[in-house]
């Protein structure tokens, strides 16, 4: 393992080369493509839809292959909570905040209920 505490040069080369440069490369490329597109360009709609689908795939990956401690929770609870959040959004005035509260409180309630009944 790298000893980052005693070697700031290594630490900051990881942060700037492994982090900043590696990520900014794609942002810069995105900007280069954006230069060729006008605000009313139809390709812009395609790019937006691709980005939408990509983000939705990321959401699905977190739900179905959860990272970290989320792994300790039930898939059914995650799916139900997500569904309740979407319902909350569309039926309670299309407010993002309310939808997030609906989903997360459903999630915590379901998890607590199940953990309690099991142990």
């Amino acid at each position, binding site marked *: 393992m790298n000893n980052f505490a005693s070697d700031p040069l290594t630490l900051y080369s990881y942060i700037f080369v492994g982090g900043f440069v590696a990520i900014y490369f794609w942002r810069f490329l995105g900007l280069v493509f954006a230069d060729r597109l006008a605000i009313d360009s139809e390709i812009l709609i395609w790019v937006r839809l691709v980005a939408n689908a990509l*983000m939705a795939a*990321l959401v*699905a990956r977190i739900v179905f292959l959860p990272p970290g401690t989320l792994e300790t929770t039930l898939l059914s609870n995650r799916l139900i909570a997500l569904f309740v959040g979407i319902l909350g959004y569309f039926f309670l005035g299309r407010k993002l905040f309310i939808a997030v509260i609906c989903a997360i409180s459903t999630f915590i309630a379901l998890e607590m209920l199940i953990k309690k009944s099991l142990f």
Partner: protein
Amino acid sequence: MRGGIIMAGTWFHGQTALLGLKNSFGVAGLVLCASSIGVGALAHDAGIGVLPLLIMTFFTWALPSQVILIAMMASGAGLIATALAVSLSAVRLMPMVTSMIPTIRNEDTPRWILLVIAHMTAATVWLEARRQAPTIPLEKRAVYILFMSLGLISMLMVGVMVGFHLASQVPVLISAALIFITPIYFLVAMFSAAQIKADYISIGLGFAFGPPITYLLPELDLMIAGLIGGSLAYGFFLLFEKGKEKAA
């Protein structure tokens, strides 16, 4: 009147900057703050100090990629291998920048601001720009987005610091709920930013295609799911929605 001195500074609008800063302290900021707590804890366990962590947070500004960076550093991976793994996770930012930039600039927007905004583009900013930018006049959008991003990044840094100091003292269920807030916010914010039916279709297809493609091609899954789902939704737009617009 294209003299540099006269035009210099026309991109800046103080009130819009303040509004952007103020609006960053909303749902998006809270979600970021909450979801970054786990990242702070991760960095703590990897032996990365507070100051490097904050600098890293500012210069990566993409939580999933930052998680991979910290995990690679903790595992003792080489610099090139780390850069490649992090880079692979950041491909998703490219279509976000490409689709956002043309909607927030005009001919007076200085190049350096666009270069900075490109760095500030992450899922949260991309979503909030789509949700909020239409209410801001075009010539003020760049400064609005810039200051909103700065506000959001501050919230992220607060969350990372809280996580760093709490480390592993957070109960498992709370830490799981903090992770789960992000996908909920992403999904609902995408619904709230949707303008046309094809937006909803792209979200549904991406969600449906994601898991099977992850199973088949775990490295490039998101990009492939994005391209297939987004292109099919675009086909729907060309076939049904665009025609309707013309007929109406």
